[in-house]
Structure formats: structure tokens, C-alpha cells
């Protein structure tokens, strides 16, 4: 890659948007698209742009994330120098774990100082997009920016409890940044990916600590947008912001569209944890239409407009429609499901009938037996 950069991924930010799926895990480890976790998209963007060191900031509930990442080898990030570096909260006796992004960054200054890459790419996990980070860094460099924020155009209201909109001029220079404004029409919504030099970031953190600032968005970006050289990088590709269970459902279903799939998965690989599952089997009598099926599934019933994660079993005579069935869920015989999301390891016994609607899919928590 043309630029030397280190990645920083926030694994817990915006967890509160999607409590159903983040109750027992980080935002980063929310399953998505049949065999991925949300972090796979942010990580793969970095790896595909040649980044070989990624610090992952965690706060709580990160066992599933550690399990997913392992040594980092599945992302080619098991390295002697760098690779995946987990950054759990650092606190001494008097401190509590961080409560905002600035404190979290303060907690990782040691990591930032020890690296020698020129740039830092900071990303959250709740956006799914194919961002060319090398191109982003080129844009940042060309403009002599101090901070470059990635945005995309989005129509109407945002489901999230916290979002920013940018107003860049024709050169890309951001003139104003608003937090949680009321939205009408098209807006330039920040997608939670920004870059700056490592040195600049360390200075910002130090300065903020000295002055007792607490919010990166409120105290730094919005207040100092006039004096800082903040640029906006327009991302024009497919973007899925996962900020509620409804959006999660909607964006998952968008994967059934060939164009969305080829944009997300084509051209470059999305890396994920390898599980050595056997290929999926379709038994005589199975009917599968418009569905994504991951490995290790055994389908004997009818599956329509669904996403099946790894190791799902659908018994004879069952009809599963418009549903997202996560890893190792076992569905018995004669079951009907419509607009249902099952978390991992759910068991649905014979002849159960469940339905939600597309606006409010019926959610079944991890490990439940019905």
C-alpha cells in the first residue's frame, strides 16, 4: 500500500442501538450475512488496503469477540510486528472504564505512541461498506487535511441515537458538523470512519486531557471545525448502517440482491473466522428460493427469502420465510416461521408457528428453546 497506517476499531460503540443482539456481545461481534461478524467488514477494508496492524478497543462483553478473532490469522493478521492487538479498558484503582470516545482514545495512547505508522484509521463496526482506505488516505494527503471524515448521502431520518452530519464545500472542506440534527431530505451522514496522522491524534488526546474535554464529537469536531482542517470524503457505494434491529433486518435482506452482494463480496475478499464446517446439504424434497445459505446447513424443508448462518438445520415439512436464522439453530419438523430472527443456538421444536412482520421481526434470543 502507498500509505503507512495503523487501524483502530471501536468494538463497543453504539451497542445501545441494538440491545437484542448486543446483550451478550459487542457490536463488533454481531453476526451478519450468513457467516460474518460486523467487525469482519471493517477489518477486511483495512487488510485489503494493506494495513497490517489493527488495535481493537474493547470495553465489555468481549469474550465472543476474542473467540472470533483468535490469533488474527484468518485476516492474515497474526504478525510478529503488529497484527491484531486487543486493547481492553485500562484503568487504575481510582478510574472506571472509559465512558466516551476521548477517554477510550486516552486509554490507548500507549499503543499509538509505540507504533511508527504515519496515519491512524479509526473505524466503528456498525457500518457495512466497502471503503477503499488507500484512496481515503490519498484524499487526506492531497488536501493536507488534519482530519478526514467519511460520509455518505442518506435520505430521511436516521434510526441511531447518535449521528453526525457534515457540510462540506466543493473542495471537500467541512464547514460545519452537526450532532443529531432533525433531518429532512438528503444529508451527508458521517459513517464513523476517520483518518488523521498518528501524531495529530496523540496531540488532540493530550490537549483534550489537559483541558478536561470529554466528547470527541461535541468538544473537538463541532467546536473547532473552523480552525481545524476537516475534510469530508464522500463514499458513494453501498452502505448499511446497522443501528436498530429493524435496520439489521432490512440490510440483511438486501444481501439477497445480486448487486449488493457483488459490491460487498466481489472483487476483494471479506475475511472471517474459519470453522471447518462441511458444505451444506439439500435433501430430497427441500425447496429453497431466493436465499443465502452458509456452510454446514442441512435443509429438508422449505426456505424462502432467508439468510441461514452456519450449521442451521431445517426439518422436513417446515416452511421458513423472510427470516434470519443464526448459527447452529435447529428447526424441527412442521415448523412455520415468517419474519423471525433467531440468535445463535436456538432450538425450535416440531410444529411451532411464529411470525413477526418486516417492520418488527420477531426476535428469539441466543440459546432459547421453543
Amino acid at each position, binding site marked *: 500500500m502507498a500509505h503507512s497506517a495503523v487501524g483502530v476499531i471501536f468494538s463497543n460503540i453504539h451497542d445501545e442501538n441494538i440491545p437484542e443482539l448486543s446483550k451478550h456481545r459487542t457490536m463488533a461481534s454481531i453476526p451478519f*450475512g*450468513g*457467516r460474518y461478524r460486523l467487525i469482519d467488514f471493517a477489518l477486511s477494508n483495512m487488510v485489503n488496503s494493506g494495513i497490517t496492524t489493527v488495535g481493537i478497543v474493547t470495553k465489555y462483553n468481549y469474550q465472543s469477540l476474542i473467540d472470533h478473532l483468535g490469533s488474527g*490469522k484468518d485476516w492474515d493478521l497474526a504478525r510478529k510486528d503488529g497484527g491484531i492487538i486487543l486493547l481492553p479498558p485500562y484503568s487504575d484503582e481510582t478510574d472506571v472504564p472509559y465512558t466516551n470516545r476521548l477517554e477510550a482514545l486516552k486509554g490507548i495512547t500507549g499503543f499509538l505512541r509505540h507504533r511508527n505508522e504515519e496515519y491512524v484509521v479509526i473505524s466503528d463496526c456498525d457500518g457495512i461498506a466497502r471503503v477503499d482506505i488507500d484512496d481515503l488516505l490519498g484524499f487526506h494527503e492531497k488536501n493536507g487535511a488534519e482530519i478526514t471524515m467519511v460520509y455518505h448521502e442518506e435520505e430521511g431520518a436516521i434510526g441511531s441515537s447518535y449521528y453526525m452530519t457534515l457540510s462540506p464545500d466543493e473542495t471537500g472542506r467541512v464547514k460545519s458538523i452537526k450532532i443529531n440534527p432533525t433531518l429532512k431530505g438528503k444529508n451527508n451522514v458521517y459513517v464513523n470512519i476517520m483518518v488523521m496522522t498518528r501524531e495529530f491524534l496523540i496531540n488532540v488526546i493530550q490537549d483534550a486531557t489537559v483541558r478536561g474535554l470529554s466528547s470527541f464529537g461535541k468538544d473537538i469536531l463541532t467546536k473547532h471545525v473552523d480552525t481545524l482542517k476537516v475534510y469530508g470524503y464522500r463514499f458513494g457505494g453501498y452502505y448499511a448502517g446497522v443501528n436498530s434491529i429493524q435496520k439489521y433486518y432490512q440490510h440483511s435482506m438486501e444481501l*439477497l440482491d*445480486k448487486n449488493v*452482494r457483488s459490491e*460487498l*463480496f466481489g472483487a476483494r*475478499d*471479506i*475475511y472471517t473466522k*474459519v470453522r*471447518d*464446517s*462441511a*458444505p*451444506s*446439504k*439439500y*435433501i*430430497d*424434497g*427441500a*425447496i*429453497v*428460493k*431466493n*436465499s*443465502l*445459505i*452458509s*456452510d*454446514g446447513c*442441512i435443509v*429438508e424443508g422449505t426456505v424462502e427469502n432467508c*439468510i*441461514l448462518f452456519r450449521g442451521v438445520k431445517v426439518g422436513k415439512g417446515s416452511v421458513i420465510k423472510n427470516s434470519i436464522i443464526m448459527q447452529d439453530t435447529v428447526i424441527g419438523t412442521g415448523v412455520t416461521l415468517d419474519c423471525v430472527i433467531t440468535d445463535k443456538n436456538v432450538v425450535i421444536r416440531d410444529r411451532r408457528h411464529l411470525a413477526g412482520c418486516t417492520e418488527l421481526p420477531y426476535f428469539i434470543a441466543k440459546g432459547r428453546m421453543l
Partner: protein
Amino acid sequence: MIQRKKECVAMLLAGGQGSRLYALTNNIAKPAVAFGAKYRIIDFPLSNCINSGIDTVGVLTQYEPLELNEYIGNGQPWDLDRSFGGVHILSPYQAKKKSSWYEGTANAIYQNMHFMQKYNPDYVLILSGDHIYKMDYAKMLRAHKETGADCTIAAIEVPMKEASRFGILNTNPDGSIYEFEEKPKQPKSNLASMGIYIFTAKKLFQYLEADEKKPDSSKDFGKDVLPAMLNAGEKMFSYRFKGYWKDVGTIASLWESNMDLLGSDPAFDVADADWKIHSRNPLAPPEYIADTASVNNSMIALGCEIDGTVENSVLAANVVVEKGALVKDSVIMAGTVIRRGAKVVYAIIDENVTVEENAAIGQDKKENAGIAVLGRDIRVKSGASVAGGKIIDKDYEGE
């Protein structure tokens, strides 16, 4: 101090050309041939090793080793990347005094004596890379120790009429072997050697040295080393194996073995949670089955895009079956594209083949014309037809 020793070292003979697989082994060694939608033949002995607690494996390659070497890599997919032990590719090499290709199975092992000796093993397990099976070698090793044998040969009962294709073991009631016949015309028993041997290491080294000194030896286990041991009165035992075991050395047996994976109660189960088959995994999204698709009794790997009809078939990663295309009773390997209206019936198609629109490959099984085979990286022109039993390894425009 850590004891620098391994109780048992496995040596996997993977040099076979597999000439009876024709176009499928034009550029790759037989153990690297794809099987069961995501595996390669060598995944089975390697997975058996690690599942049996054997973590030191020498893989002896000779014929077209490039793809096999790349596939095995550092052994990580099989958990065989170890600082002491692990999987090692053993190719023929040039030594100070001489250089030579592997001449026979015994010579191949002999040439890698120093590799085995580095681990100071008590036992050596000899394997071949041409069979599909799940076997706990640890149980066989236990039997070898219990009988106090110098050599234990895994054996399976085969139909009597096929017995003359195998090395046949004639045994006493206690399982000890009194006679060994290599491909006998008139077999006395149907107990066939599976080509899996456990030797007490010292004896193996002694007989390999001796065999090298015999000028007229063909340097083969079945023909030379095992008969020599038997003649000398060494203790040789059979170890009965019951279960699925299939030589996939021919087009027909490779096809059959793939079909054995299908159904809810398959003859051979690769999804066995208690005996995982490890492999290098394709990087691909889940497969997509479209509205227009019909999929029946099939196994389909990641990354496939199915818009057409798939019946009784095994499809490897990233295979595309377009709208109106039919794939029936076939094995399709990774990256192959079956275009609109094309028909593939009773065929094996290797990797990255394009079957263009309305082409027809193969003939229905009932017509007894045999399995049509397409070698890798070729293109069959639209509208062209390939008769059943034909083997094509170049771009094909029809006759």
C-alpha cells in the same frame, strides 16, 4: 527438559500420478484432487492423523507437487503447524553423493530416514493419499502394541470378485498374517490391505536398509519389504477396519464416492462433529439459491450462485449455474460456470471450466455411456455437445 521425541510419526505417500483419473490429474498430484465440494483427497489422511493425536506427518511428493505443496502450506488448516513436529513436505532432493527420484514406496521412505529419525519415533505409520475414509490410527497403534507386532497392516473385507485388485492378507484366527499376496489371480481370502502400515520403527529402518542393498528389488512395500519381513518370521498382524473406505483412483470411483455424501443418511458423512474433516477453506460468501432455482439432493459449497436446476450433484465453491441450466448426477469443481440453457448430466467437471450457453455435457446414466470428464480451465463452446464417457482437456468447439 522437554523430551524431543514423538511416539509415532506418519509418512504419507503422496507422489502418485493417478493416471487413471486422466484429465483430472494432468497438472496435479492425485492427493490434491478435489473431493466433496470443499475437500481434497489428502484432507482425509491429514484429518485422520490430527484426530488420532499424530502431529508429525511427512508428506512425500514427487509428481506435479506444486499445487499440493501450496495447499498444505504450513499445515495450519489441520492444526499441523508445530514448532516440533507438524506437517513437512518431503520432495526428492540432491545429496552430496547422489540424487535420485523416489523409485518405489519403500525407497521413498528410505530416502527420508533422517526425517523420521529426527523425532526418534517408536513407531512409524505409513499412509497413502488416495483413499476416502475416517479412521482412528490411535486404535490401530494400540492394537499394534498389544499384539507386540513388528508390523500391523490395516485390512478391510472387500467383495471376493474384486479381491484380485488388492494386496490380500491370509491370516490366522488371532489376526496374525501367514501369507501376503499382491494382486493374486486366485485370492484365498477377501481381506485386503488398505495400504496403511504401522511399523515398529527399528524394524522398519532395518528392513529398508536391507531392501536398498538388494539389486533386484523394486523397492516397494507390498512387493518387497512386507514379504521379506514375513519370510524372516517377523511378527505381522492384520488390523480389521470396518467402515467406509474408498479408493478414488478412477473416474467412476471418484464419482461414486462423491455421491456417497448425499442424502440425510449418507454412506459417508463429512459433517461428523466427532471426526471433523479439516481443510483449507474457500474465502467466499454463503451460496445464493435464486427464485428460479431448483435444488434437490445435492451438496453445495460457499460462493455458489444457483439460478438453474441442480439434482443429485456435488458443487464446489464459487460454481455458477445460470437460469435454465441443468446439472444432474454430476460433480462440479470450484469456480466452474454453467451458462444459460446448458445441460450437464452424469459428468465430472474440473475447476474453472466454462460451459457456454446451451452446450450439452454427458449422457444420462441409464444410457451406460460412462461419465463425461472436462479437465480444468477449459471452455466448451455454446451449443457444443460432449458425449458420455468422453474426456476433454482442451477448449472444445464440438466435432
